[in-house]
């Protein structure tokens, strides 16, 4: 009888010890789950350009992307660009935003954002996603016509009806700073203004924020592989140090995007077209030229024989792109034709090689070669 009581007490102590261990493990698991709300991803690339005069230019990029889920409905993300180019290193906060999921159809965000304008800016600009080593002129940062960033708020959502889908995004926030180029003017990165810019509508510096901008993009997908988009950006900008009156900028874009496996070609086709038109409306001045608009476009087509049996062949991809950016004040446009060949080591790791013919506003055509290793992690 005494032995049975002792055994029961011992059993009770064992149960207490097991309960304590279970509580400790549960606490550790909670801490572990909390830690997994943070995540680090990003992009890296190395680029070499061989110019027409056989000179070489190098660039390297490390772009970490931080994620932190503050709540099951709230995500904070930030993306830094640490870039070495032409012998100097620059650090840029590409975006830092807090997104909140309101319901199944609506998400709102605030912070420094990629402007939801066009398709390339938000979806294709990442180095390992862009199928060529460089950007189309019309959407290139600090060079093109497309707005790229803002500090402000955005609301976005999606709708689905059968096989059709629609996406939309609107924004309100800072406006770009209009620069009226002169030989002594520089943009935010303290580099000389590109010769292609010239006077007239000028370049828009999206790293200096003031005034206001608003607009959005609407996209329609009649079938899953095809998206048609229209974008509008209206901004009140102030020319820096200029006696000219305030400028109202209107920028519009249409984009067409296709990606699908085409059985007849035993591969995947990826196609993009984006056309952008920007114009300035000064309230009052006498010095600006009559033509205060500027346009550009790019059209790109890529093919990869993804359905063939030969593994290495299935990883090759041919890309061709035509892009054009209007000159300013009656100057000739810059036109380029690019032909590239990619080898996808992994879905997010690629070696790119491209030959590019550049038809500048003045002077002869030039030929350059571009080589890039890009990866997403």
């Amino acid at each position, binding site marked *: 009888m005494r032995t049975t009581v002792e055994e029961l007490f011992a059993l009770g102590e064992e149960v207490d010890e097991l309960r304590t261990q279970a509580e400790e493990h549960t606490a550790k698991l909670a801490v*572990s789950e909390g*830690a*997994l709300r943070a995540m*680090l991803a990003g992009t890296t690339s190395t680029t070499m350009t061989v110019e027409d005069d056989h000179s070489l230019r190098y660039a390297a990029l490390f772009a970490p992307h931080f994620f932190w889920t503050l709540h099951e409905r709230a*995500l904070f993300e930030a993306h830094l660009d640490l870039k070495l180019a032409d012998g100097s290193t620059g650090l840029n906060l590409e975006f830092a935003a807090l997104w909140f999921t309101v319901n199944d159809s609506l*998400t709102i965000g605030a912070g420094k954002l990629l402007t939801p304008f066009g398709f390339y800016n*938000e979806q294709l600009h*990442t180095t390992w996603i862009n199928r060529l080593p460089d950007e189309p002129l019309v959407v290139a940062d600090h060079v093109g016509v497309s707005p790229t960033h803002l500090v402000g708020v955005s609301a976005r959502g999606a709708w689905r009806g059968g096989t059709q889908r629609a996406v939309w995004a609107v924004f309100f926030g800072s406006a770009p700073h209009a620069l009226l180029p002169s030989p002594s003017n520089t943009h935010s990165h303290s580099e000389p203004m590109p010769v292609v810019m010239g006077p007239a509508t000028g370049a828009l510096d999206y790293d200096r924020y003031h005034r206001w901008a608003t607009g959005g993009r609407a996209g329609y997908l009649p079938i899953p592989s095809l998206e048609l988009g229209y974008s509008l950006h209206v901004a009140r900008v102030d020319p820096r140090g200029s006696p000219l009156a305030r400028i109202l900028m209107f920028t519009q874009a249409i984009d067409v995007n296709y990606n699908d496996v085409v059985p007849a070609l035993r591969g995947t086709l990826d196609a993009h077209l984006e056309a952008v038109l920007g114009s300035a409306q000064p309230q009052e001045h006498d010095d600006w030229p009559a033509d*205060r608009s500027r346009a550009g476009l790019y059209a790109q087509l890529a093919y990869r024989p993804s359905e063939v049996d030969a593994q290495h062949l299935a990883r090759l991809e041919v890309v061709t792109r035509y892009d054009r950016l209007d000159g300013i004040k009656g100057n000739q446009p810059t036109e380029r034709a690019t032909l590239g060949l990619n080898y996808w080591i992994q879905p*997010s790791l690629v070696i790119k090689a491209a030959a590019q013919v550049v038809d500048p506003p003045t002077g002869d055509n030039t030929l350059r070669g571009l080589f890039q290793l890009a990866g997403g992690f």
Partner: protein
Amino acid sequence: MRVQLVGPSHGPTALVAAAVLALALGAGCMKPATDVRDELPGGAQLWSDNCGRCHNMRPPSQYSSKEWGIIMIHMRVRAGMTGAETRAIRAFLESGQ
């Protein structure tokens, strides 16, 4: 904290854009809208439809379930997906661990 490591005139342009969208909408409106829940494809189909539009699709095994949960919030914003689509894709990706 342990961090799990693991990418002059704009009038004519506006008219063209409106015409393109109108044509596309007209083509798409031939089939009447139906209940989304009845017509939502499976997670694998949604993954194929949405995740390959911009970039090569990464295999489900590349990230853990927790990481996919974080990534899908980001991709919902970038790719423009509904909540239902996002949850279906996430379930598919987590099942592939």
